[in-house]
């Protein structure tokens, strides 16, 4: 009896140990199943069109390739999951890759599938020039550019009109006058936040201000450059004298976006992916929303913040059939007609060349106009610095807003983490 039990234990352990090996063994024949964990599910504005695309792809490749969406609605949790899998050397078959200085470290390993060869061919012509280069490190392109972000200032034209402000302020002095007029009308000027993993709204304000002070090459300057302190002083004023809501310190994206959608605040910053949300949840605010470049603080004006938001990546594999299946799916996802479907349904913008249809969302058209009229485009603070520095941004900002740190000390806190 003992011998039987011990044999069973050994067999069970052997099965447990070898299961991962069997899972990665080449598949000689039959349907190839590709797992696709993504946060484009649930309430996400891209959930429905992406699900439709995957369904169409599966129907088109019935009994050959089947893509299975794994729902991970929490973006931070999704990032943790990917980090954990990557550290364990087991990337998902296909996944959404957030291109930033931290995640580009994955390129150093051979865990990711390399698309360099494929992207040299005709597929390359589908992409807006520049994004493949941005996704290429040391000559290797291990993720496919997909969704891009553009984050101009959103303002509620109805609230501005109520306050007697006809045009969005072009300079920081005009901005202050407009803020005073809004406050006199009982309207809070700006949405801000120090919470979340990156203090998103305020980090975008800071990036805009920094761009106005430093110009197109601002991110090549070190954090010790005085312009970063100057920008912090401007951002601090947005937290003072009733220029933002009382819950901005500690508030997260729900607080910041919620106030704008509820018509409590007149100015806000976010990307086009938020169009679907505001259109559904706050139609009056959506109808009153206009876009503008940030007010001029320094020598530069009219710039926008543009960045790669989400690339598509895949696990490296020796299995040629699986590799072909992944590339087939990637090419399907980045097909201009398919991208157009997602873009028009969700309001998002993409690194792929496509024309918006005649019935495209007017606010989405505003984004395209804002991009085309930009005097120059720079990245975000979060696309320039690693995630620990970005996480420190919100903490340092809270310290500054609460009077625990001066603008110079705010920047010092960032420098300390960056070193």
């Amino acid at each position, binding site marked *: 009896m*003992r011998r039987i039990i*011990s044999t069973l*234990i050994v067999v069970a*352990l052997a099965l447990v140990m070898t299961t991962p090996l069997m899972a990665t063994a080449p598949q000689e024949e039959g349907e190839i199943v590709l797992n696709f964990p993504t946060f484009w599910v649930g309430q996400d504005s891209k959930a429905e069109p992406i699900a439709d695309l995957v369904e169409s792809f599966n129907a088109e490749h019935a009994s050959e390739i089947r893509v299975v969406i794994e729902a991970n609605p929490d973006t931070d949790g999704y*990032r*943790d999951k990917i*980090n954990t899998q*990557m*550290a364990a050397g087991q990337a998902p078959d296909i996944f959404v890759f957030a291109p930033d200085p*931290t995640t580009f*470290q*994955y390129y*150093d*390993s051979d*865990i990711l599938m390399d698309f360099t060869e494929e992207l040299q061919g005709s597929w390359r012509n589908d992409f807006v020039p520049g994004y493949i280069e941005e996704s290429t490190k040391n000559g290797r392109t291990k993720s496919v550019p997909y969704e891009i972000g553009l984050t101009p200032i959103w303002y509620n034209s109805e609230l501005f009109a109520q306050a007697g402000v006809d045009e969005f302020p072009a300079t920081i002095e005009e901005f202050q006058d407009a803020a005073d007029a809004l406050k006199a009308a009982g309207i809070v000027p700006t949405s801000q936040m*120090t*919470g*979340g*993993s990156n203090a998103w709204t305020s980090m975008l304000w800071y990036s805009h201000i920094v761009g106005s002070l430093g110009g197109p090459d601002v991110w090549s300057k070190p954090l010790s450059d005085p312009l970063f302190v100057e920008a912090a002083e401007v951002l601090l004023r947005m937290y003072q004298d009733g220029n933002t*809501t*009382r*819950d*901005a*310190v*500690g*508030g*997260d994206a729900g*607080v910041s976006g919620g*106030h704008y959608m509820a018509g*409590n605040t007149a100015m806000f910053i976010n990307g086009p992916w938020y169009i679907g949300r505001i259109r559904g949840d706050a139609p009056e605010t959506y109808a009153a929303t206009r876009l503008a470049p940030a007010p001029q603080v320094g020598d530069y004006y009219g710039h926008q913040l543009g960045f790669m938001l989400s690339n598509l990546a895949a696990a490296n594999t020796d299995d040629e059939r699986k590799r072909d299946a992944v590339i087939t799916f990637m090419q399907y996802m980045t097909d201009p007609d398919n991208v157009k479907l997602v873009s028009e349904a969700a309001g998002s913008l993409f690194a792929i060349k496509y024309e918006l249809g005649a019935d495209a969302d007017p606010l989405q058209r505003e984004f395209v106009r804002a991009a085309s009229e930009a005097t120059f485009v720079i990245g975000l603070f979060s696309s320039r610095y*690693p*995630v*620990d520095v970005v*996480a420190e941004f*919100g*903490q*340092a900002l*809270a*310290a500054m*807003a*609460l009077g*625990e*740190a001066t603008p110079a000390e705010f920047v010092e806190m960032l420098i300390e983490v960056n070193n």
Partner: protein
Amino acid sequence: MFLSPALILFALYFVYPLGFVFATSTLDWNGISNARFVGLRNYLDNFQSRTFQISIRNNFIWVASLGFVQISLAALVAMILARQPRGWRFFRTVYFLPNVISQVAIAMMWAALYNAEYGAINQFLELLGLEHLTHNWLGEIGTALPSILIQQVFYIGYFMIIILASIMSIPESYYSAAQIDGANVLQQEIHITLPMIRPILVTAMTLAMAYGLRHFEATFLLTNGGPAHRTSVLGIQLYKMFSALDYGHANAIGGTLVIIGLVLIAVIRSTLGRHADASDMTQ
């Protein structure tokens, strides 16, 4: 032979991960590229960091709050319910109910209650004409940590149930004898109940303190360690370093937590635990 499956599982799921944490805590490693041995440098870096210092201090505040305040409250309520007043079963269920609700749901509810603009707490204070007492509860230096502590400390249900079960097992004859001797309710609780449940109180305190040491969820969901790191705990710092792919420093925090936990358990066992064992023997 019969122990071997358990031993294998213990080695696989406890000894190996623990060894891995301590081994990688001595490395400069991002989980992807080649690791570099740096000795105790990660531990030194952590202890020199102001954020780490705030976090470890907050962890001890959590340990004390849960170990002493929460357990005291749980014991008090258990002693009252053990007297079986009218509706005691209902209250027992009500107190335990939060333990079967997701921490995320509870945290979201408290975030809404604490919100400075539309939260129920500030609205209630305004209704009473106490506007000067309203705060941005989770966003001010002075109120953020107490706000999170309060919403956790009052969830006493889990320990209350354990302590209540212990009290209910005390023979009724002890109390009858005390009553005959003229002892009032307070005297009965102090001289009979508390000594009799001392071992379970020590166990509950140990568990609560261990939870205080590894506390993460509520702080992560309500403040993410802010504002200005004032509510940060080691678990939050570990998570942030993990997110930054700084596995060396993250695992050094993990190693520090393990060592503090072992020391804490040893201290509890050698002080409160020793007396509890002694009282066990006299019962």
